[in-house]
């Protein structure tokens, strides 16, 4: 449930859906996100859903905090269904230098990399949000035994396609980017495609992701590479 609305500066609303980070809370966030998008409220120029928050940015030349707050508080969210959620298979190669943090994870988690991969590929994942860099999906939840902190010193450049884990989440780096997640493999799949302006993201909030382990050979012969 939407618990509280406050202002984030003078041109955004900060909508708090509670401290619990789980699928139910996130689905509530996504419901508000979809409803507001559909209503096309004048002045709103950006929406950023995350695990348990929704940031609503608006054009201060057109409207203001109290106007938009009033509209959100009186929003009927019962009409819009969470729709079009897809199930997407993402191939990942975890061989050789794709698994940048193999040794670190074995040490931190105290289990073999084989076991790590078994646990990782065994689950289905839910997409909570996308962002940070264009199209990067934040997925969860990973197996309890795989939970680990970010790197103490983030990498300056994580290669595009890298699949990483941290805390209860997994992600995919859609571009070469700085980052501190533990990298277990790399996908040849194009997760962000800016030639598709209408829907450049392969994975969207609410979607289900299944990771499929592939060999180096399969990786190299993939169409997206």
């Amino acid at each position, binding site marked *: 449930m939407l618990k509280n609305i406050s202002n984030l500066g*003078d*041109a955004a609303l900060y909508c708090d859906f509670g401290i619990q980070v789980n699928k139910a809370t996130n689905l509530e966030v996504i419901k508000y996100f979809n409803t507001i998008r559909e209503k096309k409220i004048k002045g709103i120029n950006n929406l950023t859903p995350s695990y348990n928050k929704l940031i609503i940015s608006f054009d201060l030349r057109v409207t203001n*905090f109290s106007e938009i707050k009033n509209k959100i508080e009186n929003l009927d969210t019962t009409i819009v269904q969470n729709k079009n959620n897809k199930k997407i298979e993402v191939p990942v190669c975890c061989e050789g230098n794709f698994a940048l943090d193999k040794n670190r994870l074995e040490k931190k988690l105290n289990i073999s990399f084989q076991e790590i991969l078994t646990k990782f590929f065994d689950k289905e994942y839910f997409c909570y949000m996308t962002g940070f860099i264009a199209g990067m999906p934040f997925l969860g939840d990973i197996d309890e035994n795989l939970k680990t902190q970010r790197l103490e010193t983030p990498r300056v450049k994580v290669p595009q396609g890298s699949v990483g884990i941290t805390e209860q989440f997994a992600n995919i780096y859609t571009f070469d980017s700085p980052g501190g997640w533990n990298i277990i493999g790399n996908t040849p799949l194009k997760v962000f495609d800016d030639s598709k302006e209408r829907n450049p993201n392969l994975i969207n909030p609410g979607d289900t992701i299944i990771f499929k382990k592939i060999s180096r050979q399969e990786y190299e012969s993939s169409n997206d590479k």
Partner: protein
Amino acid sequence: MRVAMTSNYFEILRGGINTTFQDKGRENLYHIGIPFSGVMDNRNFLLANKLVGNHLSAPVIEFAYQGPHLRYTGDQLNFVITGDVIFKIKKNDYEIDGDCYHSYHLENGDEINIISTNKSVYGYFAIGSEIDLKFQWNSCSINTKANIGSNNGKKLDSGQKINLLKINSDKTLKKVNYINSKIENIRVIKGTNFDYFSDEGKKIFFEKEFIVSKLSDRMGMRLEGPKIENIVNTNIKSEGLVKGVIQVPADGNPIIMLSDHGTVGGYPKIGVVVSVDYDRLVQLAPGSKVKFQEIELSDAETLFKLYEMETKNLLNQI
């Protein structure tokens, strides 16, 4: 049938430090991870377009510190440079120092050398012509981190050409008297994690001086100063960011989110710079000293309205 108009173009003899095409930026894409981008200093962008008779949201060339050196080939057109910028115009056999906020005629063979911004960061070069550019999500704005926008999302470099499509027919020269004011006190509204910081940390934030670091770019402005102590948690669950948010990571040094910022972030937000101060904030060069000053939402809204009126008045003078 449209006649191919490759006869009017600029050659880039030197790209400059960070020269990009920008316009008003992109909306409604935060949720897929794409920031606004767009010009850093909106007022100087609007003035530049008005001074060459373009529509106000037309693409301009934004440069930082050292700008480009360009040679023009084609029919007469107008151009202008806005900001606080030192530049030269080279005609056949003489060279003049250019004035900002004055539009000039440019003839075949002329050169513009944008030497540097003066005690500021960004300047704008507007051309009285339609430019041949690729638009993505209704904007030409180049985001070099995600390679989005015109020029394949890359900054302009020497050897490249800027092709013009249709030169504005009105070539009246225009000018406006305007001096960019400097900002020392940045006004902020308390952030959503303000209480993550110790009483001493909060006091430091509003009372001490911070220095703009060299590690500042279109994504963010890093500040250095006394460490702001966090007593709750140096990480939060990743959530949305907006322009002007001041995050304080574990090292205690604030980072202000600017136009190309990452759309989500996991560091506590101590404050948000108010909209009225954004144009002047981005012009703070590395080494500048700044202080933060708390302001209420209603005052921020009023000040922004006044700033917008002032901008409109300036535009009406042109």
